[in-house]
């Protein structure tokens, strides 16, 4: 390939493939956003790096599998499971916060990190014990199992469903955080914990509820991912690493940062696979390293925040 050929972009795949891949990337970004926003929220408010977030996502997917494939046997099973699985994960998150995390808030940061890492190990063997090591698949619900023709482009209906659902969920989370008293107090804690509690904010209650909200979204992302591919006992690690990249790129504790970070990582991954499949895996780490070197607080993070000190 000479220089002029390179400039003519003839080496690129046809535009229909590019557009399909772009849509795939954005679909993935929506799921990444669900996980990363919860991770970022927990980090911002509780100051805890929740390594177990990917594990809750994974358990959410497995639970969704059991609920939709075995519990109910009619066409509504998908929707019932989609509602129940994330709620169950929120409950699990509540128990984790109440009985484990709460005991180490005063300790060094590394202890909290280790505690959530212990949960990663626990859940990774837990799903192997309960559901076995084999890959599982969930069928898509009626109405979302086909393909949609958009001009020349053929796109799975289920992906379109996620593309539509993503912004709705993002908007809901935004409304909770920025338009309710609950969200305002949560942000006050993230801004200045001591001052907020001195002013009468019920910090322990908020910690538990924020952790539960984060886990709810992780479970929701897991349930939504389940019909798109196979459910595996190793899906926790790859997603947690990617979500961290998203949070670091966007800025820790930043809502819009998580959205932008998710879009960058999701789309970069989709095109990376298309153009240079071998380095797709490494490309997101390169992006994260560059961001951390040039702007350690992330694209939209707070340069004076507690985490950059």
């Amino acid at each position, binding site marked *: 390939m000479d220089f002029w050929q390179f400039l003519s972009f003839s080496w690129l795949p046809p535009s229909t493939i590019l557009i399909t891949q772009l849509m795939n990337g954005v679909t993935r970004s929506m799921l990444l956003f669900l996980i990363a926003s919860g991770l970022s929220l927990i980090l911002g408010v509780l100051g805890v*790096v929740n390594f177990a977030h990917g594990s809750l996502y994974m358990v959410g997917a497995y639970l969704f599998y059991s609920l939709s494939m075995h519990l109910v046997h009619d066409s509504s099973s998908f929707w019932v499971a989609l509602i129940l699985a994330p709620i169950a994960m929120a409950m699990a998150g509540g128990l984790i916060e109440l009985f*484990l995390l709460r*005991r*180490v808030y005063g*300790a*060094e*940061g*590394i*202890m909290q*990190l*280790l*505690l959530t*890492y*212990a*949960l*990663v*190990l*626990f859940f*990774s*063997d*837990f799903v*192997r*014990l309960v559901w076995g090591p084999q890959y599982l698949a969930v069928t898509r619900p009626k109405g979302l199992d086909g393909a949609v023709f958009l001009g020349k482009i053929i796109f799975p209906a289920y992906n379109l469903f996620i593309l539509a659902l993503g912004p709705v969920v993002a908007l809901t989370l935004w409304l909770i955080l920025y338009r309710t008293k609950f969200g305002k107090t949560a942000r006050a804690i993230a801004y200045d914990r001591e001052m907020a509690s001195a002013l009468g904010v019920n910090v322990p209650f908020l910690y538990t509820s924020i952790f539960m909200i984060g886990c709810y979204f992780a479970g929701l992302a897991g349930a939504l991912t389940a019909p798109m591919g196979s459910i595996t006992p190793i899906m926790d690690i790859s997603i947690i*690493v990617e979500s*961290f*990249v998203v949070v*670091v790129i966007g800025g*820790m504790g930043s809502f819009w940062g998580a959205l932008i970070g998710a879009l960058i990582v999701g789309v970069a991954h989709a095109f990376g696979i298309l153009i240079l499949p*071998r*380095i797709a*895996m*490494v490309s997101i*780490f*390169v992006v*994260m*390293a560059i961001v*951390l*070197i040039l702007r*350690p607080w992330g694209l939209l993070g707070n340069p004076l925040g507690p*985490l*950059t*000190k």
Partner: protein
Amino acid sequence: MKSRSHWVWVFVGIVVLAVLPLLLSKFYLHLTSTMLIMALFAISFNLILGYTGMTSFGHAAFFGMGAYTYALLSTKTGWSLALNIFLAPVTGALAALIVGYFCIRLHGILFAMLTLAFSQIFYTVIFQWYGFTGGDNGIVGLPTPEILASDKALYYFIAAIVTAGVAILWRLIHSPFGYTLWTIRENSLRSSFIGVEVNRHRLIVFTITGAFAGLAGVLFAMLDRQVFPSYLHWSLSTEVLIMSLLGGMLTFGGPALGAIMVTLIRYWISTYTLYWMIFLSFILLFIVLFLQKGVVGTVTERMKPPELRT
């Protein structure tokens, strides 16, 4: 008085290491060698974790770089064994110098994340570069030099290198440089006020731990006669972190005990069940909830008179 009792322990330790091959079967000798290597890795890692207060999530990268340097040199060149072994920690140190140059300006979680990012870049390159590193097939069947062909010879070689490495680390920690690191851990802002060049010290100690990680890596490659990309994976980075914390990161020998415990626990549990990670998670939870100073840290705390306890 105190220094004499230390020497007694050192003497006892060396005698035990020397006698072990006469008592142990081939399998347990291999297990002991693994423990020794991991102990060296953990003690050197603790130089930045416990003594300087930097939580790295990417130290497996330097371990793996050492192992791969040795594996590549010994399969692709005809260079001498001594040179191949010597160059492994050099690569580890070089990699740590480059990574450290970018990382030392960050602190806490961000430092951990950037070291993780770099280590995953190293990991992916080794994993994907089939032509050079063999990708996920690794490099197996490394040639063994004749002088180390027997299990006992290899064990003594590893034990000697580990002992020498630990002795160097001990000297380093009890030198002015070591005390400066301790100062940085206690309060980096104040130590910069009294004229300590904090970032330079952080970079130097990061590079030193990279060299020792590389040394541990080459010993591990020689022991198992193979290398795999998993040597660079972040799960090994967290494992060495767990070893240091389990033993006690504020003590010199703690990480070694942690390394021995984790290696033994993994071996014992994995002979009974495939699900050894669930046991590891319970151990970790136990440390976090009840044993935050680690085994050695807690025991030495209990031995102090009550008025000196913290």
